[in-house]
């Protein structure tokens, strides 16, 4: 349940991340794969060393999708429909991993934003990312 103020806060934060999407995205993925090594199993086909172009381009895709969705959170089900299909039928990433990436996104945002990522922003962002992950997993079964 997101208030109007929270939705604006979330959109504002992700808007700032768009120009640095590759950096932020790569860092989120790197944090996830370092802290939760099991998640590396989904990236056997990519070069996931720090700074690798694969990591940056893949990270960028993820950040841009999250940022795009944040511009109109109430339309999430529509915006994410193609990604739902992709994750359910092609990628088939176990949804428990979404939580791990969401956590690492929060850590990355905290590391970059410092005090600005205050408890209210953190709560709003956690709610948004949880909703995003839940919608992404909707077509799995």
């Amino acid at each position: 349940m997101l208030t109007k103020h929270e939705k604006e806060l979330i959109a504002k934060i992700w808007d700032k991340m768009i120009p640095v999407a590759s950096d932020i995205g790569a860092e989120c993925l790197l944090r996830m794969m370092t802290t939760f090594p099991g998640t590396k199993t989904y990236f056997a086909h990519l070069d996931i060393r720090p700074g690798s172009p694969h990591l940056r381009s893949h990270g960028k895709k993820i950040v841009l999708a999250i940022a795009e969705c944040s511009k109109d959170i109430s339309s999430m089900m529509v915006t994410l429909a193609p990604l739902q299909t992709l994750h359910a039928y092609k990628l088939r990433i176990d949804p428990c991993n979404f939580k791990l990436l969401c956590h690492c996104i929060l850590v990355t945002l905290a590391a970059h934003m410092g005090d600005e990522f205050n408890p209210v922003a953190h709560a709003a962002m956690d709610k948004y990312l949880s909703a995003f992950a839940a919608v992404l997993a909707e077509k799995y079964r």
Partner: protein
Amino acid sequence: MVEWTDEERAAISDIFSKLDYDDIGPKSLSRCLIVYPWTQRYFGGFGNLYNAEAIMNNPLIAKHGTTVLHGLDRALKNMDDIKNTYAELSVLHSEKLHVDPDNFKLLSDCLTIVIAGKMGNAFTPEYQASFQKFLSVVVSALGRQYH
């Protein structure tokens, strides 16, 4: 027994050496109560928890946050036997405080995020991995005596 590499020990040591307990403790606990409001159920006697501002300015919460953070010192001093180090505290949280052990993870996630906010880029992915491994061992030890 949990195996720790030299790098992991060094990372964890470094993080704790830079920690201001009176700052990080209160921030982590209050953040947990704000981000996961259901955790407030354990703090009925702590006064005004009505909104985020009240929680962040609550002196009882602040004091308790510092206490909880100092609780991690035991693990730091006994990294090779964290399991037994927390046996008594585990019994306390189970029998007396009746805290759902899933909540330990919520607090440890908030602590990680507060430290990331403080350390910025110095909280590297490797530091994060070591720190989260440390916290997960503590969390597991705290849940061990529940039955």
